Each structure stands twice: as structure tokens, then as C-alpha cells.
């Protein structure tokens, strides 16, 4: 499951492009910064953490599902 820091995200879309599970897609709506930030597609992420490393902007964190619920 991914958490996005929208303040850091610049909308390069690299996470969406390189996710091996197609678990991310651009948001339909533009945000305040004028970009379509990534949003998660339900039940696809396998927690491989590639998006976390490929993001040039430190904007993505991959968290375990139960960690999120706590």
C-alpha cells in the first residue's frame, strides 16, 4: 500500500510507468500544483518498493497494510 506526500510529488509519473503490477495510475483531477499525482489501484500492490526508490522526489512510501490501519 502506498502513501503519497503530495507536497513533494512533482508529477513525473515514473512510479506509474515502472510499477511492475500496474498498481498506480494518475489521478483524474489536477491537484493544487497542477499535476495528476499517482493514486493506487485497489488490491494490486505487492509491496516490492520499486516506486519508493525510483521516485526522484522522496514522495512515495510503501507501507504494510496492517501498519496503515494502526
Amino acid at each position, binding site marked *: 500500500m502506498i502513501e503519497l506526500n503530495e507536497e513533494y510529488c*512533482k508529477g513525473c509519473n515514473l512510479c506509474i*510507468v515502472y510499477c511492475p503490477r500496474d498498481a498506480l495510475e494518475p489521478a483524474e483531477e489536477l491537484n493544487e500544483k497542477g499535476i495528476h499525482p499517482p493514486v493506487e489501484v485497489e488490491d494490486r500492490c505487492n509491496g516490492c518498493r520499486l516506486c519508493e526508490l525510483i*521516485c*526522484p*522526489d*522522496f514522495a512515495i*512510501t510503501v507501507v504494510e497494510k496492517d501498519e496503515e490501519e494502526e
Partner: protein
Amino acid sequence: MEKKEEKREVEMISAKEIRDKYLRHDMMPHIFCTGCGIGNVLDYTLWALEKEGLDMDKTVFLSGIGCSSRLPGYIDVDSLHTTHGRALAFATGVKITNPELNVIVFTGDGDCMGIGGNHFIHACRRNIDITVIAVNNYIYGMTGGQVAPTTPEGDYATTAPYGNLEPAFDMSEMAISSGATYVARWGVKRPNQPINSIQEALQNKGMSFVEMMSPCTTAYSRQNRMGSIEEFWDWYDNKTILAEDHERIKQYGSEEEKEELKDKIKVGVLHKEEKKSLSERIQELIEEVQV
């Protein structure tokens, strides 16, 4: 086998913990353009610092001027942001006067090979125990895209509107031939190899040089029509070849395969050698003459 081991180590700590430990969040978001790879070089360096467990109170970062030279400012550590091209001269001074410090330099291809070229070859020749992480985007990014000594022949720049006529320097080859004892080159697109390489560079007791090929999505991309951010990032996969594969094709490949090698850039650990560093030799000399 080895790969598995590396992955496990990286997964032990969360990205959030790494960022909270090393990043200056008050400086974020960083200044780099959308899709620029310099942020990845910072990220991979932080992972390598963590894996190596370097004491940040005994570590100093230095840099010159350029987009890439802004990097030390984002790390919660003591740093010297020096003048253009001179980071290695300052780093030499820091390491010689306080050999206990881990000295790490961020530089750009312009900073390192252009105005700082002389400092670079002599730092390699002296084999000072420092780690240099060079962001090579083949252009002067910060000042808007002038030709650099690394710009490939035929590429466009604001100062080469008809294509660059000058032959380019290969930074890693220059480091090897000048005397550096650990030299590696990677693209930013694949995170694990550069993280491991930066860690090895930190371990090496001598001049370590890691060249990171990184897309400048503004100045270089616009001049050279690299397409979308995604297309530019994919370009690295088509353009690079692992040093081992390069060697194998050179020895056993077909004529056709050998022909294709001409357009490829070798990535991997390109050189490793054991040699006493100047900083260590100076310490030994001091002890000797003091007796």
C-alpha cells in the same frame, strides 16, 4: 545468492525512517526539475550511508556549484558548499587535516570535468581517501544547457546549436587512468546496483569515484529532443551495457555485436585496486618523523 542478501538488508529499514534520519525536510521539496535524476542519486546515497552505518558526526559532504552540487544541502550533516570546480581541493584539505572524517563529494560533469578538471585528475593521482559521487547529465544544467566537456559529439546545447564538434571526455575512464582505486558507473534507472556501489565506494580506502548517468529533463532534454520523461529514462537501458557483457562480446561476439558496442556506454564496477592512499601515507610519515 548475493542479490537476495542485498535486498534483505535494504528492506530492514523503512524509507520513512531513512528520510527522517538523513533528510532536511525543511529544505524539501528539493529544487530539481520534474523527472530529473539528481534526487535519485541523493536517495541511493542515503541508502548506502544507512547500509554502511556511517557515523554522521564523523562525516562531511562537500560540493561545488551546479544543480548536482546542491545535494549536500538536503542532508542533515555538516557540509561545505564551495566554489565551482573546487570541491575536491577543499576535500583534500579536510581529509589530510582530519583523516578520521569520512569525506564525500557530490559534483556534476561540468563542475568535475570542466572547471574542476585539474583538481579531479590530481585528486585521483594522489589517491586521497575520499568518495566522489558525480552526476553526469552531459550538460551544464543549472546555467541553462551549455556544452560540457562530457557532451557527446553531435549533441546539441545552447552553445552548440549546430551540434557539438568537440570529442567528449569519459569521466570514469579519466578517473581510472589518473589513479582512482574504485571506479563505477551506473544509470539512475536501476536503484540497487548504485546503492551497493556507493557503499563499496565508501568502504574503499582511497579515491573512489561513482559516476551516475542522470537525465537532465530540462536543459539537455529540450535541446536534444529526448521526448517524454519516460522515453528519456528508457534511453539509458538502450544506451548502456554491463561491463561484463561488453568484455564477453569483445572476446567472443559476432562482428555485428561488436559493431553495436561502439554506441554503448559501459556500466558496472569498472576498476578496483588496492593501493595505499595519500592520506594514510601522510599519517604514517607524521608518526615516523615524530619519533
